């Protein structure tokens, strides 16, 4: 006998799982359908090479909302966040710039390069603290529509207005600047040492098809500053076992509340009758009935692929068609026989336990973007590198290592399209660039996995390989994410909701969209 589920969630990524966990916790009968053989979406750990575990796509945690960790008691389900303390930027002249876990150490390091910047960084840190505090309530808010007069929207706007007023003039103006400026311009107001500006502004280009001098990149920078670990903003951590353990913990929580999680269950279509979602049909032809259907997929798939266009108003279809994805990042994962030996800091050291940033100057990043702008991958790209095995020794056999290299830019719309040869050429550019700073790298590589936005799209279904399910551009945020009037997790189809990073507040393994969508569904159904 066919069973009718209270809720079917399409997509077992972290947001789909968070959504399912909250709904199941409230007593709903929930089924999650994941297309792949493994849960987690872009937060997965896989043994691509025997004995070596890769955080294949996303690879660090910071933005995961503390209320989700607490409310789902994720530590009990295996979430174990380990400190990732430093960022070291190797420089072409053989020197380096380090930002360490200890503030005195960092200040002394900055003083070596620019005493003025060392002082400025203290004030800048305080401002970013205020900014993260300013943004925090917004992250936990279902976006109110400023053009609507519905009681819920008016109440939300009132709360938002009150919050913004409470910031005070100085902070409000800083927030406004961050929302509109380029990260390079914004940082120019603060700092003079080029590698420092470049390394900080790199946070403003991650996942975006923007250069550090493009307006709007300052917001992306803020997006990466608003994470918090143990009450400390801007703290980044590494999840024991890789980011698959984030999904694993959420999945375990969801199961403990009674949710059913199915893998190898690709959904072909959402069934709609009289403007109301009634269930889904799988690729296999199996039909599953449900009172509520939630899509954790991105806006393009949620609106254009999963439902027939006749079910949706044309203006919404147009908005979704114009929702910008333009994936710009690639990933290179390495199995290594030994750690890269950086010329600037010879031997194995504390820098291997943090991030290595290849961002020697703003010009370097902007040039990398120039190539992408005209349809080529960056020959000398920006990279953010971590060695997960230095933090969690279980990621590789004893004495061996894994490297996770986030690379920009690798434009989805590359001239001539992505081919196997182009992918390997991109991988070579990454390795060649990094080898300039760590000459032993090539001989240490046991296995190399290169992922382009096209691979990310093909493997995970993320449109155009955008890691945030759509760019974090000002016109695609808050009450416009993913579309005007449909930013509150609802869709025009009754009983059909969206819970992915295409909705507010966007991506970065936050889980916020999954949680807020669940709260919306619980209030309405």
């Amino acid at each position, binding site marked *: 006998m066919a069973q009718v589920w209270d809720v079917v969630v399409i997509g077992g990524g972290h947001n789909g799982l968070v959504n399912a966990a909250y709904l199941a916790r409230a007593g709903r009968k929930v089924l999650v359908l994941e297309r792949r053989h493994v849960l987690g979406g872009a937060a997965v750990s896989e043994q691509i090479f025997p004995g070596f575990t890769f955080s294949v796509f996303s690879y660090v945690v910071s933005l995961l909302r503390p209320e989700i960790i607490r409310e789902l008691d994720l530590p009990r389900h295996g979430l174990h966040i380990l400190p990732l303390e430093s960022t070291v930027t190797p420089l072409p002249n053989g020197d380096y710039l380090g930002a*360490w*876990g200890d503030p005195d150490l960092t200040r002394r390091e900055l003083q070596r390069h620019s005493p003025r910047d060392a002082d400025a960084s203290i004030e800048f840190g305080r401002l970013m603290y205020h900014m993260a505090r300013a943004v925090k309530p917004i992250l936990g808010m279902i976006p109110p529509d400023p053009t609507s007069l519905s009681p819920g929207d008016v109440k939300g706007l009132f709360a938002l207005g009150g919050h913004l007023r409470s910031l005070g003039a100085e902070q409000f103006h800083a927030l406004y600047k961050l929302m509109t400026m380029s990260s390079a311009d914004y940082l120019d107001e603060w700092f003079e040492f080029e590698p420092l500006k470049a390394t900080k502004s790199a946070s403003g280009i991650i996942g975006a098809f923007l250069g550090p001098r493009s307006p709007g990149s300052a917001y992306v920078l803020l997006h990466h500053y608003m994470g918090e670990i143990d009450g400390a903003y801007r703290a980044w951590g590494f999840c024991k076992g890789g980011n698959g353990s984030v999904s694993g913990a959420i999945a375990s929580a969801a199961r403990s509340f009674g949710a059913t999680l199915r893998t190898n269950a690709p959904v072909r279509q959402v069934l709609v009758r009289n403007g109301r979602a009634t269930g889904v049909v799988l690729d296999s032809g199996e039909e599953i009935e449900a009172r509520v259907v939630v899509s954790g997929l991105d806006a393009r798939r949620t609106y254009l692929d999963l439902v027939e266009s006749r079910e949706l108003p044309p203006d919404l279809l147009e908005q979704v068609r114009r929702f910008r994805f333009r994936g710009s990042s690639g990933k290179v994962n390495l199995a290594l026989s030994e750690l890269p030996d950086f010329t600037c800091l010879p031997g194995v050291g504390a820098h291997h336990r943090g991030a290595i940033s290849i961002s020697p100057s703003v010009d370097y990043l902007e040039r990398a973007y120039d190539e992408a702008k005209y349809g080529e991958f960056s020959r000398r790209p920006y990279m953010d590198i971590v060695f997960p095995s230095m933090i969690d020794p279980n990621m590789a056999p004893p004495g061996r290592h894994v490297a996770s290299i986030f690379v920009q830019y690798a434009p989805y719309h590359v001239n001539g399209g992505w081919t196997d040869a182009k992918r390997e050429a991109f991988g070579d550019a990454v390795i060649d660039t990094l080898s300039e700073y760590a000459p032993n790298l090539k001989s240490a590589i046991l296995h190399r996995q290169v992922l382009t936005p096209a691979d990310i799209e093909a493997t995970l279904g993320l449109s155009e390989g955008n890691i945030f399910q759509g760019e974090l551009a000002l016109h695609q945020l808050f009450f416009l994410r993913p579309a005007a009037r449909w930013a509150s997790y609802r869709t025009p189809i009754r009983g059909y909701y969206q819970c992915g990073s295409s909705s507010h507040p966007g991506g970065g393994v936050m889980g916020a969209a999954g949680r807020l969508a669940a709260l919306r569904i619980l209030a309405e159904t």
Partner: protein
Amino acid sequence: MLKTTPFHARTAPLVLGLAWRRWAGYAVASVYDWLHDREYAAIRNAAALIDVSPLYKYRITGRDAARLLDRVVTRNIGRLAPGQVTYTPWCDSRGKVIDDGTVSCLAEGEYRLTCADPLLRWLHQNAFRMSVQIEDVSESLGALALQGPLSRAVLDEVVESPLGSLAYFRVARNRIAGVDVQISRTGYTGDLGFELWVPAADALRVWDALTTAGSRYGLTPAGIWALDIARIEAGLLMADVDYTSAHRAVAESQMSTPYELSLDHAVALDKPVFNGRDALVAENASGPAWRFVGIEVDWVSFEALFTGRGLSPSLPTVAWRTSVPIYRNGRQVGYASSGCWSPLLKKYIALAHVRAPHFAPDTPVEIEVTVDHERQRAGAWVRRLPFFDPPRKRA
């Protein structure tokens, strides 16, 4: 000059932040690195090496060794077979706890007692007319705690005879780098772990062997700050922090019984004679006036105290060891004696003494917190100890 431990020549150059602390007249590292996060993480995630040499250690041998110990401690030592270790408190004649530690049965008629405070005089007083030798081996024996999920993998690489399945609270002789050592499956972290008992003269050879092999397993020397967080998560009390020794207390109100410290499992009332038995029999019948429990701070109420003042919650980075009042319905019902933010559990936790009848698990209480220089109360719950008890600890 404070005394230094047998491992000092190796540990001293690693103490980058020059943060030392006193422990029983010795200098030990509070933290090696600038911050203790990574040292704590090593305990829970990889393997950590902690110098615990300042423990007082007594070697007790002779025909009446077990008889002496059975008279002193509350656990049944007569039942302890060679190769077994037990954790136990010991009391004065009023049943008030003097100290707590471990007793290892190393061979028939040979025991090692570890404790936080010196105990030689008390042992001799209790050994009246017994055939027993008591030797203070505190200085001749170094001690290293090797703790964490990968501690067994590290140890496997250095021991000369296979470790086999050295079970929880067992001890065995072995050799590391040609040095005779005793390895016990014990520790103060509540995790998988071992303690190594090493002749002081050969201590550095053992340290070197462990750190060399451990480099492939993320082995990290860890200081007392890291250890303190781990032991609070594990619900393990600390003498002179969580309770006052009956030998040091000046008023009876400062003293605690094993039942008040929730150490019921370590009191063998079926044993005919031991110090404090009569008092403990009576207390067991009437029920203790206090219990030692866990406290979990309600984050939502804690955070609200700060956001109301335009602040973000400020968490202690290092475990605190001060007396903090616990309230229920407006009245003080107890006090916390240690607390910390648990980076693993993502909870603000504390160890506390709570009066009857408020100590039942999940009882809602309040804990004092200072916010913006003002005393406030945050919601909290009484919790069963330990907060963290991974299966690997006993596996």
